């Protein structure tokens, strides 16, 4: 089965959004989403890492693991390649773009344990995407994740003054808001379909 790369790209942003339909990357989503600027920074970092690690892991899987029959090792290989790549990016950014490092730096180590990154790599192998589709899927997922976290940060900012019931404050209300946002995103379903 082949997929139109562009369809996959838009589906990853809207109908199969990482957070609203796959629940991936929730940990940092809940913890960080209190400030719009920080959210944008983290979103950019996630998008960047996703767009690069998806093709890297694709190549590793199809040209190293499959020929040797080592598919079952993919978890270890994926997580190591993601961690190594994040480390590499951090070093390059620190040397060459100090200003970017200041705004992005603290988020990079967090990204290794962001389930969205590993999730994208696993989804693309399960769904048998080709190289171009995988890259666009990674990019789209990252943008979708950024859209979600920035939108949530915006809503939370507006809600600062509202009287939230005591037990619901913090993560509770964040989850309820996310639920309502997910409801809104269901409105996109049917426009583009993957899987």
């Amino acid at each position, binding site marked *: 089965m082949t997929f139109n790369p562009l369809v996959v790209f838009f589906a990853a942003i809207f109908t199969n959004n990482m957070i609203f339909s796959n629940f991936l990357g929730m*940990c940092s989503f809940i913890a960080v989403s209190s400030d719009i600027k920080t959210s944008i920074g983290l979103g950019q970092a996630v998008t960047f890492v996703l767009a690069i690690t998806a093709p890297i892991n694709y190549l590793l899987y199809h040209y190293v693991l499959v020929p040797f029959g080592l598919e079952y090792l993919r978890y*270890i290989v994926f*997580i*190591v390649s993601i961690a190594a790549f994040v480390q590499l990016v951090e070093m390059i950014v620190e040397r060459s773009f100090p200003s970017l490092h200041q705004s992005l730096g603290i988020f990079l180590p967090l990204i290794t344990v962001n389930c969205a990154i590993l999730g994208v790599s696993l989804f693309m192998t*399960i769904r048998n995407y080709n190289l171009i589709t995988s890259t666009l899927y990674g990019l789209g997922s990252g943008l979708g994740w950024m859209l979600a976290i920035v939108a949530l940060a915006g809503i939370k900012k507006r809600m600062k003054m509202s009287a939230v019931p005591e037990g*619901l404050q913090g993560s509770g209300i964040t*989850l309820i808001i996310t*639920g*309502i946002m997910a409801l809104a995103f*269901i409105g996109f379903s049917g426009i583009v379909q993957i899987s």
Partner: protein
Amino acid sequence: MKQTKTIFLEGLWGNNPIARQILGICSALAVTNLMKNSLVMGLGLIFVTAFSELTVSLIRQWTPKHIRMMVQVLIISAYVILVDIFLKAYFPDISTALGPYVGLIITNCIIMGRCEAFAQANPPHIAFIDGIAMGTGYTLVLLTIAFVRELLGFGTLFGIRILGDSWVSWSIMIMPPGAFFMLGILIWILHTVKKKDQEVAK
């Protein structure tokens, strides 16, 4: 023995990974539309957490400090691969249903968090018990959410019809928003109960 009891109480209630620490909710939300999937996921997580903590604790004296995160990830991945292969061999249908979420146990912050915070500083047998306790706490929350979602969303429990044919399924409960609402409400209830506990204690 007393220590074991304290650790279990911590894992199940006082320091429950999902309800208190908001860790590992990715998979908590994704697999809870069916009781069966949640149970399998929970058992897998108990296994991985317990044995990873055991291993991390066993080799903690010989692990260089600056690469310990990498070592922990590798240990966790090895156990996750075991779970994945086991599920594929004996429960192929559940393995397909869980899809990538079995692999995502690796990035489940509960395991990393406990390895880093607990297993690094405690002897192996206590770390092992802590792993079981934390995993069980996680499974209980998973099953609670799945209970409501499957009951309201399909009218069944473990695939067995509970509510009569006249029951109109709430399809929203099976869809992602249902998971967010359920977890939000559950955290709300637990926070309120804990608050009451503390007031009584005072």
